[in-house]
């Protein structure tokens, strides 16, 4: 008898506790690949998102948006709580998980999701249920061109990123007198790689640069040796890969295996941003360039970076990179909009997102700021170009914010 009472009491407490928490917390659904080929990125994203929650909910006194005080002040100090879902990198699972988060967990907004292919389905679901999808780290430019009302993206997309690459080619060419004459494109075959290479092809043509090879490969293949052979045969000035981590590793090792040392590699971030990539290929990573939305070495202009990086490091024993930096920034922008809305009503949150106007120095990103256009794209996001030196990325472009000079072997 006594035992039964205890069980009932525990049950009531559990239910009551759940309701009490749900009434106060701002619940956001985060969708990432926690298992599968890109599990590493997903688990890093989880640590990054949890770091952002720690900044929002805790008392840290950081010189950034929501860096001071605990919780969301216009919602009575409400805490942000995340519910993570694993989409395994599969667009169909992403769709199902997004629906579950909305209908079962009653989240007020979604955030995610690394692979652009998964963002395509998640953002459709968000639009159907009319709540915001915050794209933290999807870079496909077509994502915000589908007439969705509830899609918002803080980060630059691959047309903006690719523009920065070609601006860099032009400026470094003018500076050193050694211009890029040809590029070899190497991209995986989902929406990320396809959109990225399309942008690269157009900009190369516009800049009068020859596309010596355009290799579309199957992601996560056991071997890329035949593909690498075609890159070697093209022998372009710059190799431009759009690849996830495993393929990035196989590409760099494969080029070495066939005795080919490329003059320059300019990556569309993704796998190339990961510490796992740098560790796996070791010295072969030296000199690799990548676009980035985040610059760990821009602490002078963004004083919150060292403290935020330390919080992240304490969780995950890694430094922030292009992906994790963007994830923190996006969640904070979303939480700030919910705070400004002063409500968990989806329409008010959307109105607050549309009204967003955050100066860059209130974030950890090297951007001019955050201001969404009518498609939900942040138009004040300004990317940088980075290069691996001594096993870590350093900003080399734009020249005025660079922390290191570029090592430029093209034309030598």
């Amino acid at each position, binding site marked *: 008898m006594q035992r039964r009472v205890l069980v009932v009491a525990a049950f009531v407490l559990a239910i009551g506790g759940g309701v009490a928490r749900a009434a106060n917390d701002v619940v956001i659904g985060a969708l990432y690949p926690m298992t599968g080929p890109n599990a590493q990125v997903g688990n890093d994203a989880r640590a990054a998102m949890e770091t952002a929650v720690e900044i929002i909910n805790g008392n840290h006194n950081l010189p950034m948006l929501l860096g001071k005080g605990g919780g969301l002040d216009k919602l009575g100090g409400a805490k942000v709580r995340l519910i993570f879902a694993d989409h395994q990198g599969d667009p169909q699972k992403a769709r199902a998980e997004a629906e579950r988060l909305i209908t079962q967990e009653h989240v007020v907004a979604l955030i995610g999701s690394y692979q652009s292919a998964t963002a395509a389905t998640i953002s459709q679901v968000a639009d159907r249920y009319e709540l915001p999808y915050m794209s933290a780290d999807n870079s496909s430019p077509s994502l915000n061109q589908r007439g969705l009302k509830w899609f918002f993206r803080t980060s630059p997309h691959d047309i903006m990123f690719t523009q920065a690459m070609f601006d860099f080619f032009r400026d470094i060419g003018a500076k050193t007198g050694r211009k890029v004459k040809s590029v070899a494109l190497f991209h995986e075959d989902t929406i990320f790689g396809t959109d990225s290479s399309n942008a690269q092809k157009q900009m190369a043509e516009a800049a009068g640069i020859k596309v010596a090879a355009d290799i579309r490969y199957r992601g996560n293949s056991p071997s890329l040796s035949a593909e690498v052979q075609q890159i070697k045969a093209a022998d372009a000035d710059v190799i431009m890969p759009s690849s996830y981590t495993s393929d990035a590793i196989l590409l760099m090792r494969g080029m070495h295996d*066939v005795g080919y040392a490329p003059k320059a590699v300019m990556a569309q971030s993704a796998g190339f941003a990961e510490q796992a990539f740098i560790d796996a290929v070791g010295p072969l990573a030296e000199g690799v360039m990548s676009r980035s939305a985040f610059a760990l070495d821009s602490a002078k202009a963004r004083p919150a970076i060292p403290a935020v990086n330390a919080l992240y490091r304490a969780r995950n024993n890694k430094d922030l990179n292009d992906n994790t930096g963007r994830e923190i920034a996006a969640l904070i922008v979303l939480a700030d909009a919910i705070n400004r809305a002063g409500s968990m009503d989806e329409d008010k949150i959307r109105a607050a997102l549309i009204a967003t106007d955050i100066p860059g120095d209130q974030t950890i990103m090297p951007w001019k700021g955050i201001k969404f256009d009518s498609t939900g794209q942040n138009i004040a996001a300004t990317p940088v170009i980075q290069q691996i030196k001594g096993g870590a990325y350093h900003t080399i472009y734009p020249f005025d914010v660079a922390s290191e000079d570029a090592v430029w072997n093209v034309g030598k």
Partner: protein
Amino acid sequence: MTLTFLLQVAVGGLLMGLIYALVAAGLSLIFGLMDVVNFAHGELLMLAMYATFVVWLATGLDPLLLLIPVALALFALGVAIYHLLMARALSVQFNRGMVQIFVTFGLAIFLRGAAQFTFGSDFKSVSTSLLANRTIDMGGIFVPLPQLAAGLVSLLAFAGLFAIGRTEFGRALEATREDREAVALIGIDRDRIFALGWGLGAAAVGIAGVMLATFYYVSPNVGATFALIAYVTVALGGFGSLFGALVAGLLIGEVEALTALLIEPSLKQVGMFVIYLAVLMFRPRGLFGTL
């Protein structure tokens, strides 16, 4: 397109094909013996790669020295899997085949999860070994040493498996495969043969794992990348045929490389499946299958 260029791609396909063949050998062996597709085969490969990585990290021993110990460890694991799981699955009364399939499928998911839980989801790799990052230039054709060594070890392993096939144990395996009820009458312990078959199959994929770890990244998901190809290899070569697995592995390696080169890299698995479908239509038991 020069001849050197074609040869280079063909060499790449050949070396990869030898790895595919060795991964498939263990799968074929177990299938031939028990009529069971081991869906955890890729995960055994993954475990062997992690074992190599972990011992290398802790002791700095060259992965090549770990070839025998890891193969033995995987042999023990294979025997254990048989006794703890498969023998029980065999003893059910209904739908025995399905139960066995689900057991290996569940094992695969469990092992992948356990690996991610234990080692994390980061990509790891063995960065120092006698062979690491070395490549030899043979008249313009580059042959990476780790892959070359892996190919040679694969051939040696096949030679070993063929040799085992000629021993008394090998004949007992063959007899058990042909009629598992009758062998009991002539005093062959079926359980023991099955267990050793699983051990041998796991040891073969263990050898593949060690060699793969010298030049490939290690992650909880790495097995899945190779497993699909292993299933096609076994089906193409003929279920239960070791020689078939060798030929089919090489064929798939080459078809993949040439499809990537001549048609389009993103379609390279299509080339492999076209061959498979053709074989399925005209010779359903596979190239060298006897079943």
